[in-house]
Every structure is written in structure tokens, then in C-alpha cells.
């Protein structure tokens, strides 16, 4: 039954991404060309509300549904990996118009060709795992 919760959360995510058109290549192009507020509004609203929610969780030391404290593991410090890795991802994001989540939502929507992006994204992650220790982090 527990697994059902995650499937349900994913379904809501897929519907929201579709209905906000955040899965559309056109919307991502519009965003990177700074020609509409739409995508900035979506991400901005999510971040502002997210900041408030996380602050409240920390302030009141809220616990999750199972009674465990909610801890958000901080990312390790550094600049190189975030900047270079982020830039590489950004290149692919603007090219395919899809970040990892929307790739799968698009597949469900019926865009079979997104399967190519998914397969090669998996290969890309594999490639990273192979060369990881030789990269600056």
C-alpha cells in the first residue's frame, strides 16, 4: 500500500507538469529567450512556497508520517561540479526541451521519440559513473 502513495504522487506530478505545459519544448524555449513569465512563475512560486515550508519544518522540527524527524541532507560544498555539470545539463535541457521528469511525462503523453532521450540519458549517467573519478568536482 505504501508504494501506492509514491505512484499517486508521481501521477499528480505528471498531470501538473502536463497541465502547466512545463513538458513542452516550446515553453522551455520561451523561458530561455526570456519572452514569457510562465516558467519563471511556476519555478518561482514553487521555490517561494518551498522555502517557507522547509523553514517551518525546521522551525517546528516536524516529523514525517512515520514519526521520523525530517532531515534534508545538505549538498556537499563545491563549485566546479555544480557549475560544469549544471552547464552540461542546461545544454541538453534547451536542446530537447525536457528535464528528467518531463521526459517520462512526455512518454506517457504519447511522444514515443522521448524514449530515445530517456535511453541516452541513462547512458549519459552510466558514462558519468565510468569517468567520475577522473573529473574535477
Amino acid at each position, binding site marked *: 500500500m505504501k508504494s501506492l502513495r509514491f505512484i499517486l504522487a508521481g501521477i499528480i506530478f505528471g498531470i501538473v507538469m502536463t497541465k502547466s505545459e512545463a513538458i513542452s519544448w516550446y515553453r522551455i524555449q520561451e523561458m530561455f529567450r526570456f519572452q514569457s513569465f510562465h516558467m519563471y512563475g511556476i519555478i518561482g512560486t514553487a521555490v517561494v512556497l518551498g522555502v517557507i515550508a522547509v523553514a517551518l519544518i525546521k522551525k517546528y522540527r516536524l516529523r514525517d508520517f512515520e514519526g521520523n524527524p525530517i532531515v534534508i541532507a545538505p549538498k556537499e560544498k563545491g563549485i566546479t561540479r555544480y557549475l560544469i555539470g549544471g552547464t552540461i545539463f542546461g545544454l541538453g535541457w534547451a536542446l530537447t526541451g525536457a528535464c528528467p521528469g518531463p521526459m517520462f511525462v512526455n512518454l506517457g503523453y504519447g511522444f514515443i521519440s522521448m524514449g530515445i*532521450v530517456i535511453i541516452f540519458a541513462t547512458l549519459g549517467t552510466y558514462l558519468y559513473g565510468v569517468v567520475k573519478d577522473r573529473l574535477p568536482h
Partner: protein
Amino acid sequence: MKEVLLAPWPWYISGAMIAGIMVLLLFLGKSFGFSSNFRTICSACGAGKRVKFFDFNWKSQIWNILFLIGSILGGLIAHLFLTNGEPVAIAESTISDLAALGIAAPKGMQPEELFGMASLTDPFNIALLAFGGLLIGFGTRYAGGCTSGHAISGLSNLQLPSLIAVIGFFIGGLTMTFIGLPLILK
């Protein structure tokens, strides 16, 4: 009510719901980050035997794979029951910029030129999608997260690394948009 559901949802509703999903996952004892699924898939396929990076307890990440399966279903449900099939209403300025790149004005959710069934028989287009996928899979793991992990979860937690990653997303995105795409699509 039906019209409201079928029309695209405004940004503030969508943004609030995305924050809601992030918070829901926190209360379920997990953290919102989609791109780690690629690592999980590699590991589940046995990559851990050859490469140390994939040698971890991937079964602890099954919840995220379930979330992934849900997101596919969500896309399907939204397409079947919650759309009016209207073209994406992007800005006129974007339409004319894209026309200069040979991409026609929207007729639906995605450009047929890149994602239509006919585009699947075009080797150049397949190479384009494959290259984009490689960059995303490699870059997200190098950066330790994607839009959900860094831009939403990370910024919500006021993490500096996530801000740096998001700046990187835009350096890459703007470079592809203004330098890469004109070279590739022309």
C-alpha cells in the same frame, strides 16, 4: 469547472502544486529529485558489477522509480482526460524566433519537427535527441541533481550548491538556445 480543468493551468496553481509534491515527499520520508532514477536504473541493470558508482543499494530507491512510473501514468491520464488539444500559447516573439530556426508555430504540445512520429525515421533528428539525452544524463549526475533536486528542493533549502547548479543550467541553456540551436537546426 470542466473548462477550467481542460485549459492549461495558470503558473501559480502549478507552482504551488509542485511545492506541495516536494513537501509531500518530505513527509513521506523522501526527498524530491528525479534524475537520480537514471543511476538507479543503471544499478538495477547490474552496472554495479563493473562500475563502483553504481554499486549501492538501489532497492532503497524503488520509491523514486514508483514515482517515475506514476509520472508516466500522469502524462497519459492528462492527455486522455484533461486536455483540450489546444496548441501551447507561447509568446508571439518566441513563435517568430523559432520560425527563423525552421520550427513552425505550435499545433499541439510539442513540435512535430522534433518529436513527431515522422521525425523518428530521420537519423539526424534521432542523433539530436540522443545527444541531448546524453548531455542531460551526464550533466545531472555530475551536478548531483536536476531541476527538481536543485532548483526546487535545493533552493527551498537555501543551499548554495543548488544556486550554483541553477546558474549552470542557465549558462548551458542560453548557450544552446542562442548559439547551439541556430547551428544545429539550420
